[in-house]
């Protein structure tokens, strides 16, 4: 294996896959990236056995071959070299020699044959959509995924492929996010729903651009593969039953208190009050009256914050407690200038929606005061 390439052309695919490499691996080779070089292209693969990224870049006049080298070190070396300079990689016995200007590095390798093979699934179904659309869908929901929850099926993003709609759902049991995308899923033999693990979702969101270049999603029995420009993403799926989330989304019609509020004004008001909320529980109180929403917070040291926001509301007054972070997370992504809050009583969940359109909905459970 031997090739010469511009430093940036080498660094880019390495950075694209580096998030997959675990800091603490149980198997040494998982700390490495697989470099696979053909006459005219270089592919860089990384895996943690659950998630697999392959980034590809064009080469000229390369000598084919493959090996694996320590990911962290190779990335640090490339990053430290001057942009725009040429880097030459070659094998020297069973080690990799990297030369660039007056610098020279020799790296240990592990055999390419030992690198775990991720058999790309035989796709049962595939569909294409704009990468910006998928990114938006993830951005609207990912923050509500659970983290290391014992209910393992919550540590990921539910994707539901129906006939004309792709829906993403995330929940940690305290709040829930739903986002919908109109897309032609008629390529699927039947509706499918699957759970992509949290780490894959976060890495995918990082890899996706905002534009309308087309990407391809392929589904297999227990894997999902997404082909982005220059990058292939393969993830195992979480096997488990996602809870019946429909049951916990309140219907707008059954809520009797509907508030319309400037999204950013409320978010900022919450941010101010949260400074003096209990640091551990992040609890705040909302006091709703005719056309006025008051945000109240206090901490164990008896310090207090009070903030008022004008709203459109007529009806009975209500006092209800929430984890302020859950409200702020949802308000940060609602895509319209005004948001609508639909409430019932202090023990019932709050539904947050954009003031028009049905692109997303958020459900937040209250805290007992």
């Amino acid at each position: 294996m031997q090739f010469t390439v511009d430093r940036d052309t080498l660094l880019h695919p390495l950075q694209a896959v580096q998030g997959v490499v675990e800091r603490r691996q149980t198997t040494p080779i998982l700390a490495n990236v697989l470099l696979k070089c053909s006459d005219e292209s270089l592919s860089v693969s990384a895996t943690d056995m659950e998630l697999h990224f392959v980034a590809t870049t064009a080469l000229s006049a390369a000598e084919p071959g493959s090996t694996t080298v320590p990911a962290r070190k190779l990335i640090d070396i490339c990053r430290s070299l001057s942009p725009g300079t040429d880097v030459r990689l070659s094998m020297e016995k069973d080690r990799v020699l990297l030369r660039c200007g007056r610098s020279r590095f020799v790296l240990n390798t592990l055999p390419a044959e030992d690198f775990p093979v991720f058999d790309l699934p035989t796709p049962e179904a595939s569909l294409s959509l704009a990468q910006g659309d998928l990114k938006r869908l993830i951005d609207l929901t990912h923050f509500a995924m659970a983290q290391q929850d014992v209910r393992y099926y919550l540590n990921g993003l539910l994707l539901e492929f129906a006939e004309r709609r792709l829906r993403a759902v995330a929940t940690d049991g305290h709040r829930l996010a739903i986002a919908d995308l109109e897309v032609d899923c008629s390529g699927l033999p039947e509706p499918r729903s699957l759970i992509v693990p949290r780490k894959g979702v976060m890495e995918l969101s990082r890899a996706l651009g905002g534009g309308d270049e087309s990407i391809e999603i392929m589904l297999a029995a227990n894997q999902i593969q997404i082909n982005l420009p220059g990058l292939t993403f393969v993830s195992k799926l979480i096997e488990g039953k996602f809870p019946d989330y429909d049951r916990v989304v309140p219907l707008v019609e059954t809520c009797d208190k509907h508030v319309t509020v400037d999204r950013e004004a409320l978010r900022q008001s919450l941010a101010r009050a949260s400074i003096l909320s209990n640091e551990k529980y992040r609890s705040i109180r909302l006091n709703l009256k005719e056309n006025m929403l008051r945000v109240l917070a206090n901490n164990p040291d008896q310090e207090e914050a009070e903030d008022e926001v004008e709203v459109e509301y007529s009806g009975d007054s209500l006092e209800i407690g929430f984890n302020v972070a859950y409200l702020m997370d949802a308000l940060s992504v609602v895509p319209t200038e005004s948001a609508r809050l639909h409430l019932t009583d202090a023990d019932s969940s709050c539904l947050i929606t954009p003031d028009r359109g049905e692109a997303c909905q958020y459900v937040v459970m209250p805290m007992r005061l």
Partner: protein
Amino acid sequence: MDAFYASVEERERPELEGRPVVVGGNPEGRGVVAAANYAAREYGVRSAMPAARARMLCPHAVFIRSRMTLYVEVSVQIRDIFHRYTPLVEPLSLDEAFLDVGASAELFGSGVDIARSIKDSTRCELGLVASVGVAPNKFLAKLASDLDKPDGLVTVEPERVRSFLDPLPVEKVWGVGAAAAARLHALGVHTIAELRARPRSELARRFGKWGDRLFELARGLDERPVMPDHEAQSISHETTFEVDLREPAALRDSLRGLVEQVAWRLRRQGLLAGTVEIKVRYSDFRTVNRSAALPAASAGTRDLWTCASRLLAQQLARRGDPVRLIGMGASRLTRERSAQADLFEAEMSARQRRIDSMVDAVNERYGRSGLHRGLGRGRQ
């Protein structure tokens, strides 16, 4: 307590008197010995040994499956006796604890008086034999309590620390296991006296930070305070197997006992755990810690077990090599139940809470023989 589980079983079943008794897993399967009485120990049976091996050493022993709920209940009674003398009780396991009686002398007499009185109480009230060590610190007290089992009472007065320690083998020093002992022997250090003769700088050079600790322990110095559970940052238990284990079913069995002990200590202190951790040490001494957050802080045996057993299964799937130690712990401790309502509560925890309160109510009324949870027992 001496041979705690086995002693409790002997007390419950007088027909066992004088016979070798082994408590633990199934000797037909891959079970592990949890405790053996002194009659069984004469045949070489030890705790943490595979039960099948114990059966080979002592075929006529009576083999009994562990009844953790019963031992936990007796443990509460033992702990109540300890608390008569001081609030500073640090449980080490179900049947072992450190007591700081420094401030109890006026009411109850000297450390030795209290030790005698505790031994009498456990014998008369509970029918159990205890060994006690009385010493200026935790290291020496634990050492002293182990020296004259069963039914021991060993006192180490401050002026006698050196003569007490000097003849003992280095294996008796807290933290010195087989591997460390072999390294010390290679340096010509076999007794604590020989360890004490080594300069601090040499120990620090050879053993790093732990060398400092060795230097202090060889002089009987140990500043660790007695830490009651309610001040703890985390509560954990671990167990080292005599022979490394790789059978998931046997490891699950051991984990179950650890979970019940940790859950019980939490509940006793009115604490709830936010995070559950497991620790797996493989035969190559590589140690893996895995943790997971509970959906809501809890001290429920079932909640902790669901989480811990899942973590263990995941780790064993990652690496199925022989295991020499497993541990289980609870951290992010809090006193208040979360005020945060759960979206799926109706589906999951409400039912569990009903079962819990039912079990508690029955047990309160009818005692230990009432109900206890299955926790996947018998599932392989």
